[in-house]
């Protein structure tokens, strides 16, 4: 309270005390008084003085016990009959000094030529102090980056990555045959983490997978906003393919990382000159050499190079796309010339197309549906309108529709191609490649469904939880590495007898070659066939041991004169092994 205000109040109080005392003497208190008439002089409104601090001359509103009235008090409200005193109705006498009034006892200005009355200006009482204060509301929204929101989004991203790491780490077990094959080449462990073996390779895979998710967040943030980026990363992190790839010793994870890096670089260079897109080309070109299925997504990346070219709305965008396609194509050509064509990319098989598409729908359906919702929403409106005053420039409807269509359609490439080939090999991993492109739209979809200013966060939470549960269940179903520990333990004893001279026939020669690399040479392990191939092998009797994974004894080995059944080894844990056929080991008699 300023000194001036304080003065005014004090003055009024003093004045009113005097007036009140006079009034009490001259005329009793009125029965009812309107408070606005009694403004100065300790009127109690808003904040109050402490009880007991009431002083003579103060007004009091509300009910008061009879007999508590003190001299000089005014009272409004109900009053007991019989307490009325004469002089009632002389309220004018108590009217505050609305106009100037001479202070009694004040001397007139001696110097003045004319009479100058002394005025006391009573200032109106200031507004009571509020209990709390609303800070200045910045003209922004959640989607506007500032230091704090950047930190929050990084923190949330770290949590998402932790969840992803956890989902991968809960998968456990011995090497898959393909992992063992990947780890072994030329008879020794290969790869960057050769000494660390399976664990090291799987850890490296997880690192690439986490990197891919982080890059996906970055790309989505650049293309749309932070919220969509986090939602995209969250959705991608709980996919079965993500958890699986992160715990699978293969180059799939690296390939995904390279694709994500290319996508991020496309988004990063969207406002730069068309030539800047060349930075993304090496990453895109390397991806198919890590996992051949990545080649399917190079056209998508090229289209995205055009569509994301933000600044160039015409020829510049197509120049950007052309440059990207040419550079990537040239690098791939060089790669093929040096490294040879990756094999297996067009291998036909006999899997049912319908069942492959059905499985794909199970693995990626949730994310793709949300992505379609996002794409439709994006096509209809460029922004959610959280900040109508800061709309800025946005891509046009055609460009937005094309972006949504490209991203969503890319998710269908692997399922459709593999359904066409009738080859379901690693489809549960390959589906993650396409979803990498659809997930930004899914993130946008979640962001849109939650509404402006997180109006319906429960929708986002619901979708995330559904995707998490579905992803976890599917991963547990799919991630069933062979329970080979007992078989390896048994074969260790078998090969110990034969030394380096033995020759072994196995349904999973890679696994034996990898785990028993200290005892045998990979060349000693041969892939077992069935039917005539097995009959010939058994008849020849040239193998020292035969290891088959079979629910029952093949006819060739029933009552065989050369081989005797050494052991039938069933998976230790029937539940986690998911009905795996037992290992049956025959040795020479």
């Amino acid at each position, binding site marked *: 309270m300023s000194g001036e205000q304080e003065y005014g109040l004090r003055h009024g109080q003093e004045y009113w005390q005097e007036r009140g005392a006079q009034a009490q003497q001259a005329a009793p208190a009125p029965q009812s008084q309107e408070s606005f008439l009694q403004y100065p002089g300790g009127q109690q409104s808003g904040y109050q003085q402490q009880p007991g601090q009431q002083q003579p001359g103060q007004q009091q509103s509300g009910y008061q016990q009879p007999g508590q009235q003190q001299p000089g008090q005014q009272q409004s409200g109900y009053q007991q009959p019989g307490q009325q005193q004469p002089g009632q109705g002389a309220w004018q006498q108590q009217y505050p000094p609305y106009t100037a009034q001479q202070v009694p006892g004040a001397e007139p200005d001696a110097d003045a030529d004319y009479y100058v009355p002394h005025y006391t200006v009573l200032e109106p009482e200031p507004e009571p102090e509020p209990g709390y204060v609303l800070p200045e509301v910045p003209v922004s929204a959640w989607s506007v980056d500032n230091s704090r929101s950047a930190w929050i989004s990084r923190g949330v991203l770290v949590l998402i990555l*932790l969840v992803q790491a956890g989902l991968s780490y809960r998968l456990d077990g011995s090497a898959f045959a393909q992992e063992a094959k990947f780890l072994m080449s030329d008879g020794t462990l290969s790869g960057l983490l050769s000494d660390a073996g399976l664990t090291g390779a799987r850890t490296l895979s997880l690192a690439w997978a986490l990197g891919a998710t982080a890059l996906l967040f970055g790309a989505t943030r650049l293309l749309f906003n932070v919220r969509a980026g986090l939602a995209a990363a969250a959705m991608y992190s709980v996919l079965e393919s993500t958890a699986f790839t992160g715990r699978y010793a293969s180059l799939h994870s690296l390939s995904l990382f390279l694709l994500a890096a290319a996508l991020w670089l496309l988004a990063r260079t969207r406002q730069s000159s068309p030539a800047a897109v060349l930075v993304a080309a090496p990453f895109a070109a390397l991806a198919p050499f890590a996992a051949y299925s990545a080649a399917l997504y190079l056209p998508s990346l090229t289209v995205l190079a055009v569509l994301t070219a933000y600044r160039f709305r015409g020829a510049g965008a197509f120049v950007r796309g052309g440059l990207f396609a040419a550079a990537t194509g040239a690098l791939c050509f060089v790669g093929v010339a040096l490294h040879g064509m990756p094999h297996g990319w067009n291998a036909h098989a006999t899997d049912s197309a319908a069942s492959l598409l059905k499985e794909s729908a199970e693995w990626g359906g949730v994310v793709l549906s949300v992505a379609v919702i996002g794409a439709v929403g994006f096509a209809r409106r460029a922004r959610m309108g959280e900040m109508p005053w800061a709309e800025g420039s946005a891509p046009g409807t055609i460009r937005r529709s094309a972006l949504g269509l490209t991203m969503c359609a890319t998710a269908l490439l692997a399922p459709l191609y593999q359904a066409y080939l009738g080859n379901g090999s690693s489809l549960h991993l390959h589906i993650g490649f396409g979803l990498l492109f659809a997930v930004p739209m899914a993130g946008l979809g979640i962001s849109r469904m939650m509404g402006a200013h997180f109006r319906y966060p429960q929708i986002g939470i619901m979708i995330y939880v559904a995707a998490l549960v579905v992803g976890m269940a599917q991963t547990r179903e799919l991630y069933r590495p062979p329970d080979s520990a007992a078989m390896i333990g048994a074969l260790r004893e078998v090969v110990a007898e034969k030394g380096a001279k033995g020759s072994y026939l196995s349904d999973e020669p890679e696994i034996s070659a990898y785990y028993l690399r200290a005892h045998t040479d990979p060349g000693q392990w041969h892939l077992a066939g069935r039917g005539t191939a097995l009959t010939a092998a058994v008849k020849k009797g040239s193998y020292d041991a035969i290891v088959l994974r079979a629910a029952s004894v093949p006819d060739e080995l029933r009552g065989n004169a050369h081989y*005797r059944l050494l052991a039938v080894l*069933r998976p230790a844990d029937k539940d986690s092994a998911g009905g795996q056929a037992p290992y049956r080991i025959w040795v020479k008699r």
Partner: protein
Amino acid sequence: MIRKTLLPLALVLMALTGVSGCGLFGGDGDPAADAAREPSADSSARAAQQLPYDVKPLLHPAKKYFGVAVDGAPSSMKPVDAFAKTVGKQPNMVGSYSSWGDGFNAEGAQNVFEDGGLLYVSWEPFKPGLDKIADGSQDSYIKKFAASVRKTDVPVAISFGHEMNGHWYPWGTKDTTPRTFVKAWRHIHDLFQEEGATNVVWVWSPNVVNPVPTVQLKPYWPGDAYVDWVGIVGYWTTTGAHTFDTLYGPTRRQVATFTDKPVLISETAAEPGERRRADVRGLLGGVEENEDVIGFLWFNIPKRADWRIQSSPLALAEFKRLIADDAFGFEVPRS
């Protein structure tokens, strides 16, 4: 405010993940990799990583099996111990009889193995007939029996349908053809293989051909892949053959024409009488002398005659003297 809460939370979660991750690295993340290493003696994973009991070392032993069938064994090992005390040597094979339909005496097998021996089961298919066994209608029982044998994981010798060349058992020559016998045998063997009961020594045990010279053994032979030992049932009676060669020789020579599997005198005893001491000498001497004979199983039960060795002090003394030879008895390998 949010940053202050979120960042420590993220750090704590990261640390927790790191710790659990390290636990996985050092834990059983890759059981096969542990299995590929030589397990240490105190390793808890040792049992899980070891092969099921391999009977191969038992098939051609360096020393002779000394078996006994006594009442009450192998459910209790006391009668066996008492017999061991009587003859002065611990038997390493304990005979038992199991009717078709009975469960496998897993506890008995364990008892015998713990005493350093091998359970010998004579599996007697009184009912419902070998044709029923051969046609698969008894599969559930056979599988259950096999699973029980596999689970026990101790060596077991099984002799299915012994004395099949005689006419005195329902599965004998009177009611069953050799073809059915072989079919039933192979079927049982196959089911045991399916189940993974590899800890079985299969004993094909005809009666000595002397009382049934017209019955050829070869048609009853299931094949080398289905049999591990040839068991010969032949008692030393007061009226029968009195030398090792005359009692077992004709059978051994006939068997030798179609297989070279080791021979076990799988059920024998000497009838009390004047010749008993000489019979004991003939049996133990013959077993010791013949390299292809890997041992004998003494029927020490009073049944139709008092076959118990302790019923004849002189024969017992001879038995004790001969069985004391180092050639008889050994501890069955532990794994």
